[in-house]
């Protein structure tokens, strides 16, 4: 399956300066960048691949950063995607620590990427797997020492290094990252307050019933959660440089030696904009992961994609931030780079582990009109099934993998799980699946 030499199948492109430009340059050594390289080699792509990232680490998995890695139960080596030998055997050149600031391109799509260091990376084809960055908090005191973010490995390392000096932590943002990190910090003995601006937790990803469930469950486990929180400023310590707390709009101060901000991400669209690609909440791509120039692929968190759910209304678009999307979207992009056109279609799924609460989400809730709640407190299981015109479209499942798997499989096969029968939590969902 692996290509062992660099013989290019197409004639190499020559730049206007005469330099020969071959191979594929993948900018972003991310989950999607790694998957793209791996899938291309599995499909028999023979040209040279450069997988370039701006961090000083080998490509690694992010999900554990807010959980097992933060808690110290897995080490950094466990996060590495592939061994060095794998990349060498598959003729993928890894480039670390280079940040691309400018791309010059010829009419045929080939070009040269320029890094901040002055290094140059010529290419014949280009893939943008540049992901997203943490949205910055805009508030007085946001630049104080001790105000941190959690997006990449260096963020997690910095956070870990600070923890010895932290007794009280404030987490700003009650989404996945915020709640995962808050649960980790609480488990490590910190007093944790979560400040959520909105009226409920995880509001962007789950429905109201699930938000309510997590609110009660986290409070029961010891997190202090404030909804509709309005903040005046971050308060400095006496030294003027370190953060000491968060002042709310009623003037009270929640003390904190650490403030972790998890208020979402901003897609890294700058290179795409510079290339003149269509951009709208991410890089706009078609069903084949191709950007508006018809040759660059853009994959994963940064891509604004046609809704991949089978049966979704034509023209509906979405940007998904998930491992599953990074992987499946990269597979489609790999086909596109091989000259084959596959549609990106599938059942998106997500997970989030918070304390002993294992949330699995199948499908997308976009456009739901009713829900069914299945709750078995004796066994600690909780699921919400989402329906649109009587058909199941998604489910949030907490510690209920049987429900999750049943819904995910039914969606993949175009089957339904009738709402009235599903309402009994004792019923095993996969036994009531109906065709059509």
């Amino acid at each position, binding site marked *: *399956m692996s290509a062992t030499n660099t013989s290019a199948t197409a004639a190499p492109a020559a730049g206007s300066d005469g330099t020969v430009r071959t191979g594929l340059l993948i900018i972003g050594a991310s989950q999607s960048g790694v998957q793209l390289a*791996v899938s291309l080699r*599995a499909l028999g792509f023979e040209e040279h691949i450069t997988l370039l990232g701006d961090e000083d680490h080998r490509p690694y*998995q992010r*999900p*554990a950063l807010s*959980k*097992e890695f933060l808690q110290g139960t897995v080490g950094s080596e*466990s*996060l*590495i*995607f*592939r*061994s060095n*030998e*794998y990349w060498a*055997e*598959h003729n993928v050149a890894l480039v670390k620590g280079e940040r691309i600031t400018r791309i010059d391109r010829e009419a045929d799509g080939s070009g040269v990427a320029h890094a901040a260091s002055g290094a140059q990376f010529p290419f014949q084809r280009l893939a943008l797997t540049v992901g997203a960055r943490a949205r910055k908090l805009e508030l007085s005191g946001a630049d104080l020492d001790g105000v941190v973010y959690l997006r990449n490995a260096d963020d997690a390392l910095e956070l870990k290094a600070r923890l010895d000096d932290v007794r009280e932590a404030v987490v700003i943002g009650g989404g996945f990252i915020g709640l995962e990190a808050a649960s980790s910090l609480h488990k490590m003995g910190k007093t944790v307050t979560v400040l959520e601006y909105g009226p409920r937790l995880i509001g962007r990803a789950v429905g109201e019933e699930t938000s309510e469930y997590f609110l009660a469950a986290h409070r029961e486990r010891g997190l202090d959660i404030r909804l509709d929180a309005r903040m005046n400023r971050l308060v400095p310590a006496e030294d003027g440089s370190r953060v000491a707390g968060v002042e709310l709009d009623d003037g009270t101060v929640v003390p904190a030696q650490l403030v972790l901000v998890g208020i979402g991400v901003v897609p890294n669209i700058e290179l795409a904009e510079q290339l003149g690609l269509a951009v709208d909440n991410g890089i706009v791509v078609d069903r084949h992961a191709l950007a508006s120039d018809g040759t660059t692929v853009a994959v994963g968190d940064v891509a604004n994609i046609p809704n991949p759910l089978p049966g979704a209304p034509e023209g509906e678009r979405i940007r998904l931030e998930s*491992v*599953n999307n990074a*992987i499946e979207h990269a597979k489609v992009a790999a086909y596109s780079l091989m000259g084959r056109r596959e549609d990106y279609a599938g059942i998106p*799924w997500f*997970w989030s*582990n918070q304390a002993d609460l*294992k949330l*699995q989400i199948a499908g997308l809730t976009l456009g739901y009109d009713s829900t069914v709640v299945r709750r078995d407190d004796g066994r600690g299981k909780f699921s919400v099934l989402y329906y649109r015109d009587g058909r199941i479209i998604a489910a949030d499942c907490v*510690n209920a*993998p*049987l429900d*999750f*798997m*049943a819904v*995910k*499989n039914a969606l993949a096969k175009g089957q339904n799980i009738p709402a009235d029968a599903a309402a009994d939590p004792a019923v095993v969902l*996969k036994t009531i699946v109906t065709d059509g």
Partner: protein
Amino acid sequence: MPTVHFTDAEGVVRDIEGNAGDSVMETAVRNGVPGIVAECGGSLSCATCHVFVREDCLDQLPEMDEMEDEMLYGTAVDREDNSRLSCQLKLSEDSDLYVTTPETQV
């Protein structure tokens, strides 16, 4: 060194040396063994690292917990009595495991 012998659905065998403390899944993925997807990276969320363990190796393995048991009901290829999720199988210094990967994981 612990060793895992992976046999894929076509019968191709790959013998991989791993590290004690790593899981069978990690050993496979890092070395590019096909047949194990492991989308979730080992957090017991996706059931795409399903393996069939050779019967005489089963007693080397830790007990299955309820979560793994339930996840195994959602694998792409139906579970058998010797099914496990390979992310839950940690290698020890003297592990010598024979596993078969299913035809598909998704």
